[in-house]
């Protein structure tokens, strides 16, 4: 099976050819935004880049480099102030390794904001002329990396949304592609199911070790075992009886394929298949979505019950809902109606249709989040977690 996509010189497959502008530090955010607005490209801005603790800064740098390296990106402009901690040359070098054009400007060197803005606009125009010439070519599905996620859940999410994704995941993997699953905070209670699907004993141990750490953190944070607090009274009112049942609603997105390994943010995907991304950031949905983009996902399939506008700066987001009423009400932000399962269509058939839409999007069909211009890029932070390397003041 093949898709028509952009083959990058490093061998990776992109399904878009975005030009993006990345701000190195919050001081250069608005200049970056003005350049992007004037040229119709996507800006990546954030609140960091200077005076950070070292490991926080490493995460900032990793996230900015990963944005530029994502295979959906065909050209990059880096915009800095000049004295920030983020080393623009290092970021430029790391992105340029992939073979794509990367330019950089510093506000202090250019002589101020209006000067940097004017120069940035002319650079982006040239980058766009270049990317406009690039054509989609036939690429094997083995190069397609798909993220899966859910958010804004309701009682239909586990029933029709995530079951449809699970059926689709199995089809992506069966056809040689890769699927990334994160949201590992939702794994405890079903770790025995995930570990039993590990491709090797070593990977099974990776899964169990990760969940043991999460369980220990839970006790440290709440003073109780995860089973003592879950399912919550709200879950029970919605019909969830046990923690296995609750966590399986999340795990269901993984389908039933063998797990190829547990990746930390920044680890490479060594071969196609189903992978777990150990991104423990707890926070709004864009944190997890950005983690998937950082790991090289070029599209994420996102199931929601109540509806969600989220998108990502470097990858399209295929949003589906398991709730037919939500699809009726929020059609402008929702691409696919898995609520047909509640109306009698089978789960495998719905998964197949979802897979077909995924291929259409891979071939260039725009998603609702792209049409609407919803391009979040939220750097996943783990420093607030107790087990993330201890106290920041040490």
């Amino acid at each position: 099976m093949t898709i028509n996509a952009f083959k990058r010189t490093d061998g990776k497959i992109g399904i878009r050819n975005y030009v993006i502008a990345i701000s190195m530090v919050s001081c250069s955010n608005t200049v970056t935004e003005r350049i992007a607005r004037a040229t119709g490209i996507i800006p990546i801005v954030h609140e960091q880049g200077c005076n950070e603790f070292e490991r926080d800064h490493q995460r900032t740098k990793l996230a900015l480099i990963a944005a530029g390296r994502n295979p959906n990106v065909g050209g990059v402009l880096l915009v800095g102030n000049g004295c920030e901690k983020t080393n623009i040359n290092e970021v430029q070098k790391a992105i340029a390794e992939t073979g794509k054009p990367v330019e950089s400007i510093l506000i202090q060197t250019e002589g101020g904001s209006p000067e940097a803005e004017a120069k940035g606009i002319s650079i982006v125009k040239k980058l766009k002329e270049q990317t406009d010439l690039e054509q989609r070519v036939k690429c094997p599905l083995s190069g397609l990396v798909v993220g899966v996620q859910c958010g804004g859940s309701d009682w239909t999410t586990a029933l029709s949304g995530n079951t449809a994704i699970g059926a689709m995941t199995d089809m992506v993997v069966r056809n040689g592609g890769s699927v990334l699953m994160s949201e590992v905070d939702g794994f405890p209670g079903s770790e025995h199911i995930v570990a039993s699907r590990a491709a090797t004993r070593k990977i099974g141990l990776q899964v169990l070790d990760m969940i043991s750490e999460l369980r220990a953190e839970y006790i440290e944070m709440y003073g109780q075992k995860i089973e003592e607090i879950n399912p919550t009274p709200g879950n029970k009112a919605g019909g969830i009886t046990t923690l296995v049942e609750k966590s399986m609603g999340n795990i269901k997105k993984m389908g039933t394929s063998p797990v190829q390994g547990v990746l930390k943010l920044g680890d490479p995907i060594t071969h196609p298949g189903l992978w777990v991304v150990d991104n423990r950031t707890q926070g709004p949905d864009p944190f997890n979505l950005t983690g998937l983009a950082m790991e090289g996902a070029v599209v994420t399939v996102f199931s929601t019950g109540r509806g969600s506008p989220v998108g990502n700066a470097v990858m399209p987001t295929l949003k589906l809902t398991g709730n037919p009423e939500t699809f009726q009400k929020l059609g402008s932000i929702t691409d696919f109606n898995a609520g047909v399962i509640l109306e009698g269509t089978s789960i495998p058939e719905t998964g197949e249709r979802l897979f077909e839409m995924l291929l259409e999007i891979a071939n260039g069909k725009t998603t609702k989040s792209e049409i609407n211009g919803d391009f979040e890029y939220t750097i996943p932070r783990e420093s607030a977690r107790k087990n993330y390397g201890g106290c920041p003041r040490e």
Partner: protein
Amino acid sequence: MKKVIQIESEDNVGVAVQDIFVGERVGCSGTEMIAQNDIPAGHKIALVTIPQGERIIKYAVTIGKSSREILQGEHVHSHNVEDITNQLCNEYERQFRSVKG
């Protein structure tokens, strides 16, 4: 509109996709049954009679154990299901780690 969905063919419980009322005749995966209780949308219904101490199967995995006999068409929830998550996870992990590989 269907009233009950069986997610996987191995499951012995289905999920109500609409509120079901006691005495109502509902069909699922070719089986007809009479609802023994009111069952709200999103809640589970026994597709077969499940003896006490049996595994409750949903998503093709064990999600709990029946704490008493559950009749076909009965509401399946905390009042007749024991949460054995801890036991399932611990037993699996103990066995997994004890095997040298």
